[in-house]
């Protein structure tokens, strides 16, 4: 990339390892800052979208059209006191929000934004994603336990069981993707979806059940409505983060929204061809990736405004008795399609 070469040319007076580290840090900033900005404006988008669905206007007081609302919210949370409950485990209580946010940001390292725009182009990218998304639950469990509060603990227990259950159909859906693409590298998975048919060459069509199950499991994995039993305002107050205030609470909030964006981006990369353009002839580019991610983010908000919360035992039934058998059957179907080179997706 030109910009990287330009910066390297400016820094020749530094030792080589320092330059490499500096460039990596700059690249990380180039990912984290837009992600954080998206998180901030996703909260505003959520309130606006749900407002319009419920025939309200939504926030419109701070700045033009309410566009400065996220900044006002962030300032408010920054100024609030972080209260540590007296019976809590102080260290784990304060570490838990960081444990929740860390994996949500670290997973972005392997997401391909464009053919060349990727921080770490590693061969086991899909596995890395799966491993990191399964770690976010520690923030929730540790928060629930360290708070030393009944409601927080109940929320943590619910969340642990739910995330472990939905990780399995999610993992099997990814197995289907890697059978279809023949690679664990996310860039190569996108390239495997390139074809003459535009959007009909993408994996969402041959892997349709896995696509639906992956996204629904993603909603469950991020603890979003209708699977938000770990927060369950009407049942257990606010679940695992009931004792948190100020910036510690804001970190949980950031983690949840960063995870939503991550799941949306991943669904776009794995099933909707990432940066590929939907119509043959129109150039590919990062804007397609952003548009597809935005589409799935809108689905998240739409779900929240539309569906009532699942009951806990119904969540378990959906994950274990419906999603799991469907994914296993469809992995066999996909394998058969790959072995027999079913056109147009798996033509030899």
């Amino acid at each position, binding site marked *: 990339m030109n910009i990287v070469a330009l910066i390297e040319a400016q820094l020749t007076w530094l030792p080589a390892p320092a330059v490499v580290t500096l460039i990596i840090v700059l690249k990380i900033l180039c990912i984290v800052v837009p992600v954080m900005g998206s998180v901030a404006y996703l909260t505003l988008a959520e309130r606006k979208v749900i407002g319009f669905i419920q025939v309200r206007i939504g926030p419109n007081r701070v700045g033009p059209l309410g566009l400065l609302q996220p900044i006002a919210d962030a300032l408010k949370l920054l100024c609030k006191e972080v209260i540590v409950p007296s019976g809590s485990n102080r260290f784990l209580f304060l570490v838990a929000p960081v444990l929740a946010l860390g994996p949500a940001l670290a997973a972005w390292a392997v997401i391909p934004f464009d053919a060349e725009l990727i921080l770490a182009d590693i061969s086991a990218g899909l596995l*890395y994603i799966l491993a990191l998304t399964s770690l976010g639950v520690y923030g929730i469990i540790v928060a629930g336990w360290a708070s030393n509060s009944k409601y927080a603990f109940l929320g943590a227990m619910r969340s642990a069981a739910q995330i472990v259950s939905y990780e399995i159909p999610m993992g099997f859906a990814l197995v289907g993707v890697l059978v279809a693409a023949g690679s664990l590298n996310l860039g190569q998975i996108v390239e495997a979806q390139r074809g003459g048919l535009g959007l009909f060459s993408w994996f969402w069509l041959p892997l349709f059940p896995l696509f639906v199950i992956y996204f629904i499991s993603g909603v469950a994995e991020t603890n979003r409505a209708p699977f938000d039993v770990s927060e369950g305002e009407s049942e257990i107050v606010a679940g695992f983060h009931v004792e948190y205030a100020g910036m510690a609470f804001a970190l949980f909030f950031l983690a949840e929204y960063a995870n939503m964006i991550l799941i949306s981006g991943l669904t776009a990369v794995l099933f909707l061809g990432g940066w590929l353009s939907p119509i043959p002839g129109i150039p590919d580019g990062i804007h397609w990736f952003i548009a597809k991610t935005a589409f799935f983010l809108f689905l998240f908000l739409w779900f929240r405004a539309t569906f009532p919360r699942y009951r806990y035992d119904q969540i378990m039934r959906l994950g274990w008795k419906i999603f799991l058998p469907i994914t296993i059957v469809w992995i066999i179907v996909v394998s058969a399609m790959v072995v027999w080179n079913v056109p147009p997706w798996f033509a030899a």
Partner: protein
Amino acid sequence: MFEQAIFYIFAAMLIFSAAMVITVRNPVHAALFLVLSFFTSAGLWLLLEAEFLAIALVLVYVGAVMVLFLFVVMMLDINIAELREGFARYFPIAALVAIVMMYSLGTIVGPENFGLDQVAAAQGHAADYNNTHELGMALFTRYIWPFEIAAVILLVAIIAAIALTLRATRQTKAPNVDHQIAVRREDRVRLIKVDSEPLD
């Protein structure tokens, strides 16, 4: 040089957290230290270019097994004083077992079996080396039978574990979710046509 520094940092963290697992009083802290030791050993495996195994370790042990472990440990009401009761009495036996295990470990993986004269030094691979691919090839060609037999044994264990929970007749009352979801409007609501009566 840089790799060695990373190795020693991870190794020190691994030994520290493994020691903390057995010495801290709080079982939840012990479980979290076990998570840390899994993490650091995954880091060591990454240094050995075994990225598949390293990520699988994090995915399986940290992401699933330890979550369930924490789940159980947090629910238990463990009395620490009771746990410590027999410590002094059983210490000699424990020490004996520990020494025997250390000795057998030492004889198996000691320098006389794993020295540089027995095993050639590991070779670094180029950046395009794919550990996952190599592992898959080995598992599904040369080691296919051991691999399949291990899979069947695990399956048997899973079925046996589930069968054990179903041994006693179920006493608790729980709603049947399949039944609840299968309910249609016709099962619950009856529409009755009532003829309107003329006003007198």
